[in-house]
């Protein structure tokens, strides 16, 4: 059959998508992760700057007044130390939250995940379909793309359009 493409477009609405629902949590996860990491980075930058200023001040003091001992130069004020540690932990949290989802390594668990969840289980942290995900990697043994009978497929498709068609 040779139905013009224009007509095809007219009769099909876009099918309802179930991926939209699935994507949302992933998007939110990346967003959270990125925000946390950024926050931590700002904190760390501030801590770094404070520490640097502090040591510059200390060395200036040491140069002007010879009375102070050298040990005062090395010690960091406690607030800067705390800020540094907190910033490190916050970035760490952000980075861990931003890692890609893991995949089960036992064959049966992995295969079961493919069957049970379909492609939804294999979205990466951006919510995009993972590029190397192929579904059941052995499905080609049953569909056999090299031997595809295109005429039969066309006939079936024409029949489907005629009988049910997309409502």
């Amino acid at each position, binding site marked *: 059959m040779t139905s013009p493409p224009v007509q095809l477009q007219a009769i099909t609405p876009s099918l309802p998508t179930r991926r939209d629902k699935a994507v949302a949590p992933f998007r939110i996860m990346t967003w959270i992760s990125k925000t946390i990491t950024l926050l931590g980075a700002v904190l*760390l930058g501030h801590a770094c700057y404070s520490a*640097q200023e502090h040591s510059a001040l200390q060395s200036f003091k040491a140069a002007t007044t010879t009375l102070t001992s050298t040990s005062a130069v090395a010690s960091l004020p406690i607030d800067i*130390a705390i800020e540094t*540690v907190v910033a490190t932990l916050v970035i*760490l949290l952000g980075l861990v939250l931003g*890692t890609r989802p*893991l995949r089960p390594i036992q064959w049966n668990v992995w295969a079961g995940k493919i069957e049970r969840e379909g492609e939804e289980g294999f979205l990466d942290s951006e919510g995009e379909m993972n590029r190397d995900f192929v579904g059941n990697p052995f499905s080609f043994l049953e569909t056999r793309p090299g031997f595809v009978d295109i005429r039969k497929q066309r006939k079936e498709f024409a029949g489907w359009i005629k009988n049910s068609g997309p409502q």
Partner: protein
Amino acid sequence: MSSERELQISPIVQEAVMNNSKTLYNLQSLTASLFGVGAGILGLESYSGFLFYVVCSLLTTMLFYVLRVAPTSLPSGKAAFDASRYFRSQFEFWTGGLMNGLAGFILTWTLFYGLVRA
């Protein structure tokens, strides 16, 4: 060999193993550099710096386990702190981070130590 037979009966998915260890490796090298920055700002020297690194990288693995492994691994009947759902070698999972990131840690540690105390 019984273990080989077991592998035949319940195989391991190589791509998944690679995907997981790459994820963990990336995280560990990234965080190791971050700890170097922290240690440099704090002005840690010699043993205390390395102690900081060991504690932090264990903390990373712990956090990774809690946030990424445990939510799916515990319901599937694995014991706590058992990452065998996603990683083949338990020892490697818990201690691999120490070696992976050491070079990056020392690099940023010395760099920031020098920057802050110039």
